[in-house]
């Protein structure tokens, strides 16, 4: 029986439901010291002086560290961020000092005793302020920073980190062929990842200089590589360990607390030091989701065929580059959404502000352009008096079209968008109408949107799998993706079980990642684990079977080609009764009369991204991923026209995933994505005061969707195989979020009869938009 497409219990299910699963912060040891940061109360200020004397005298304190100790600059794209601020602070919540003490209580107490004298500077509090010619410079040294990503071009004397250009087709022709042109401006605020487990890390420097770090990271190999590079330590002397991770959503892909943990350990002679964010620090000090603004202009014929797209995006990266510029690039390269547009002109700018700095967040920037495009599609449909669903069908991307980056579209590297739209049409009962006034005066409205996304990985992103075997013939599976929640350790085990034609229960997965033991996996990001590790594990299985067959051929006196593998047994194809069990082979074969051959069998497999091409700096020509998973989503709301409030009734997704490996977890992932999308649409946002202070730094004021506030979720899978995917599978983990904010805004705009092009859409915003925001007391 196939093990693909079958609901499969997670390997870690019993650990997790009983609480036996251990996360990094659960692993407290009696010899651990505690570190804690003091954060900046200013968004932009000079640090005039820091007085650490009182804190140093406080009970249990071993060290008080400021930015002058081990001054380094970090960043995976631009090295612009000191782990502890030096000379000036650039955002509210930035670390300005760190205390190391014996207990958590002592460290918290001492942190309050540090006295910092600041001189506030003018604050850059918005994208507009950042790009204004009078804007204060946030980084005086912009233009001089070392850029590990050689394609970014920070502009000296400005707050502009990078500018990505897309130039496809002939815009003049596009506008000439257009009968109608619509335009809009959108705004999506910064917000938080809000993983259940706040970020934390432990570091220790052993007497021989080896550095051992355990952390809640999505990118243990990046931790190893960046610590090595920044502090000049040989990679082999750095060991990074990651147990289960309690949710990440991109927020744990940046090396962040690991730097601090290492610095703290260094300051106390290498002793083991733990640093763990409080929820407030996790929100305000560690990196957040980007904020974006856009201007979109789109032209189409009277028949609704899009002829031209001109778009400008600004990405608010906050105080440091983080991963911002790469998301700006992702926005530009996929800016058309899953629609065929021949003439495209897109500029995507990354800018510094005095906001929280940013890292990847579920969707990797794709929510921003999807929101703009889906609002634009509805406006176009509205102007042409067309059905929003029909206009999307008409422009759906298909085999033979090209991307904005001019890369080729195939059915295999995208999927069947039209099939997704038709499935959605059914699941949200589009036929009954998309705006229905109920007898009680409530308005039921439906909005839709289409999405796509690719990985935007480095060109050489790669993955490895190592397989060892036990003497009972069962398999140990080891790879470098961290189990951040989606159950990928199980998915990979399913692929291996299917390839080996054996029972998944006899596959034992190494749940942790240890950079000393596990083959490298680029990062557990970009919805690429199933695809990359899945391809690698198939090769590992092939490698393993080849070795097993070679050995069995000796024993069974035949050629390896005459053998097949199934049920942990190697057997003759023409006489299946004749064979030998794995357990007699995997540790070497012992002849009945004595003497043995071979030895333990080890399987290995690898995968590396293929045919990726960096974007041309002038035209944006290139290729940013191997495939673009796509689909269609819908949101149904009930709007109360008296109170200007709304309820979420349904959210639906139809997505072409190529092949579903584990349907239940896949469904859960899509639902989780939809829930986050509704969070962005309805309430999640960073609110900055006039002087750039983040005002909602705790869960008292930062709101996200709670259980019970969710609508009914509908998930449908379309399966158009990706030829080079494992059993045809495409990436799907992030995708549930992508078009939900746009679909929600479309539903609300339709219900209210006004345009909503900013997120989140609160009842108060609807009231303001509808009434002008003044209570009429007459």
């Amino acid at each position, binding site marked *: 029986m196939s093990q693909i497409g079958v609901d499969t219990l997670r390997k870690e299910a019993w650990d997790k439901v009983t609480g036996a699963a251990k996360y990094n912060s659960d692993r407290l040891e009696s010899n651990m010291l505690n570190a804690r940061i003091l954060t900046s109360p200013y968004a932009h200020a000079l640090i005039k002086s820091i007085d650490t004397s009182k804190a140093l005298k406080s009970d249990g304190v071993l060290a008080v560290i400021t930015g002058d100790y081990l001054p380094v600059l970090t960043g995976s794209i631009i090295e612009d961020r000191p782990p502890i601020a030096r000379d000036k602070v650039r955002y509210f919540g930035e670390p300005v000092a760190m205390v190391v003490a014996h207990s*958590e*209580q002592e460290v*918290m*107490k001492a942190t*309050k005793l540090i006295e910092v004298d600041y001189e506030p500077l003018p604050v850059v509090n918005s994208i507009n302020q950042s790009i204004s010619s009078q804007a204060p410079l946030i980084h005086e040294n912009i233009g001089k920073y070392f850029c590990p990503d050689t394609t970014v071009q920070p502009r000296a004397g400005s707050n502009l980190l990078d500018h990505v250009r897309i130039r496809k087709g002939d815009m003049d022709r596009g506008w000439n062929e257009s009968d109608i042109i619509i335009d809009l401006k959108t705004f999506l605020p910064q917000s938080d990842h809000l993983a259940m487990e706040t970020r934390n890390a432990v570091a220790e420097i052993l007497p021989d200089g080896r550095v051992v770090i355990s952390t809640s990271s999505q990118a243990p190999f990046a931790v190893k590589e960046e610590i090595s590079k920044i502090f000049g330590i040989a990679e082999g002397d750095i060991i990074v360990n990651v147990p289960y991770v309690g949710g990440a959503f991109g927020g744990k892909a940046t090396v962040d607390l690991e730097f601090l943990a290492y610095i703290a350990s260094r300051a106390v002679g290498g002793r083991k030091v733990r640093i763990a964010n*409080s929820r*407030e620090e996790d929100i305000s000090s560690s990196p957040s989701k980007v904020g974006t603004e856009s201007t979109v202009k789109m032209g189409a014929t009277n028949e609704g065929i899009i002829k031209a797209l001109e778009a400008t995006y600004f990405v608010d990266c906050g105080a440091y580059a983080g991963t911002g510029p790469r998301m700006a690039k992702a926005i530009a390269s996929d800016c058309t959404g899953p629609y065929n547009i021949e003439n495209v002109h897109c500029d995507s700018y990354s800018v510094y502000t005095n906001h929280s700095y940013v890292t990847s967040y579920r969707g990797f920037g794709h929510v921003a352009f999807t929101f703009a495009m889906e609002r634009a599609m509805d406006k176009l449909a509205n102007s042409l008096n067309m059905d929003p669903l029909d206009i999307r069908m008409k422009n759906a991307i298909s085999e033979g079209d090209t991307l904005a980056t001019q890369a080729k579209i195939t059915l295999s590297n995208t999927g069947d968008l039209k099939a997704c739209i038709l499935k959605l049409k059914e699941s949200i009962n589009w036929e009954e109408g998309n705006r229905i006034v109920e007898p009680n005066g409530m308005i039921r409205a439906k909005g839709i949107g289409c999405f796509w996304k690719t990985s935007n990985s480095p060109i050489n992103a790669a993955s490895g799998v190592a397989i060892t075997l036990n003497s009972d013939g069962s398999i140990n599976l080891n790879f470098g993706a961290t189990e951040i929640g989606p159950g990928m350790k199980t998915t990979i085990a399913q692929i291996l079980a299917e390839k080996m034609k054996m029972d998944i229960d006899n596959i034992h997965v190494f749940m942790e990642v240890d950079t000393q033991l596990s083959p490298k996996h680029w990062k557990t990001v970009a919805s690429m684990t199933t695809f990359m590790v899945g391809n690698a594990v198939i090769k590992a299985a092939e490698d393993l079977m080849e070795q097993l067959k070679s050995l069995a051929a000796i024993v069974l006196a035949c050629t390896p080609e005459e053998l097949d593998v199934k049920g942990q047994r190697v057997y003759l194809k023409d006489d299946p009764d004749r064979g030998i069990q794995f357990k007699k082979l995997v540790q070497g074969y012992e002849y009945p009369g004595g003497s043995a051959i071979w030895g333990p069998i080890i399987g290995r497999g690898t995968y590396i991204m293929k045919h990726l091409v960096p974007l041309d700096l002038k035209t944006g020509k290139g290729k940013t991923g191997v495939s673009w998973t796509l689909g269609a989503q819908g949101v149904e709301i009930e709007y109360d026209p*008296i*109170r200007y409030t709304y309820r979420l009734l349904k959210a639906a997704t139809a997505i072409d995933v190529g092949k579903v490996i584990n349907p239940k977890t896949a469904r859960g992932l899509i639902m989780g994505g939809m829930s986050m999308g509704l969070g962005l649409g*309805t*309430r999640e946002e960073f*609110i900055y005061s006039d002087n750039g202070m983040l*005002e*909602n730094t*705790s869960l*008292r*004021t930062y*709101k996200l969707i*709670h259980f*019970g*506030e969710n609508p009914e979720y509908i998930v449908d899978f379309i399966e158009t195989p990706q030829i080079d995917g494992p059993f045809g599978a495409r990436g799907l983990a992030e995708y549930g979020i992508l078009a939900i904010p746009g679909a929600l805004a479309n539903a609300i705009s339709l219900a209210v009869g006004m345009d909503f092009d900013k997120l989140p859409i*609160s*009842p*108060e915003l609807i*009231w*303001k938009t509808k*009434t002008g*925001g*003044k*209570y009429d*007391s*007459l």
Partner: protein
Amino acid sequence: MIPFNFEYYKPKTIEEAVDLFNSLKSAGKKPVYYGGGTEIISMARVHNVHMDAVIDIKGIPECNVHEVKDGELIIGSGVTLTEIAELNFFPLLSLTIKRIADHTVQGKITLGGNLMGPIIYKEASLPLMASNSKVIIAGRNGKRKVLVRDIYDKEKGLNPCEMIVQIVVEDKFLNLPYAHVKRTKNEKIDYPLITIVGLKDEKKISFAFSGICEYPFRSPKMEDVLNNNSISVNKRIKKAITNIPGKILNDLNGSSEYRKFMLHTMLKEALLDFQEVE
């Protein structure tokens, strides 16, 4: 984690509690009375409150009373919201407190804590104010009894050494027709954007409000307007809104203009509720 040391006391009598408070204060320390501790714990964790000592009142028998006796409902300040909702002597009070925080936290929050804690909304006070309930306060000079609404009055309110012992509700108020309307910014469970309760005693409806100003209140002026049946409901409400007795909140939860709009729809709902009952 609470990152500082503090002393913990659990006195058995009111006198002991008040004496402790005074002696700690004279010794230059900052004591606080302690009910469920939900705000003390969550705020001390981030240095938003500081105390040198907590005086846990849950060991005092009077503070745990919860009964109807001699025509009065008496609820001790140490009784939890969950207990109040479960015994349900006063349905409007039960309904109101079931919408404070979530079920888990309701099992910790005490009536006294909700009335006197640092969070401004104090929604449990609304049914008590609407029913002219009284509060028994203990201090250095013994006990005194004041109207619940007066505890938020600068002059008549509690002085720092005083503690709430009990709430006293006359039983004639317990089963009157009522209305409770709560709106939040967006959530099912959250602090109120506005909460209003109404209680109808024969012909007159008394109202109490939370989330409009920095303190919960009852306003005789607004009540007079709202009860004036000679003018239309809309006009009554608009006039009531112009008579709000303080500065209207304008914060992350909602602008003051939006609060006025929302209050309008809520009052309309509450008034209609009462009409339907008739």
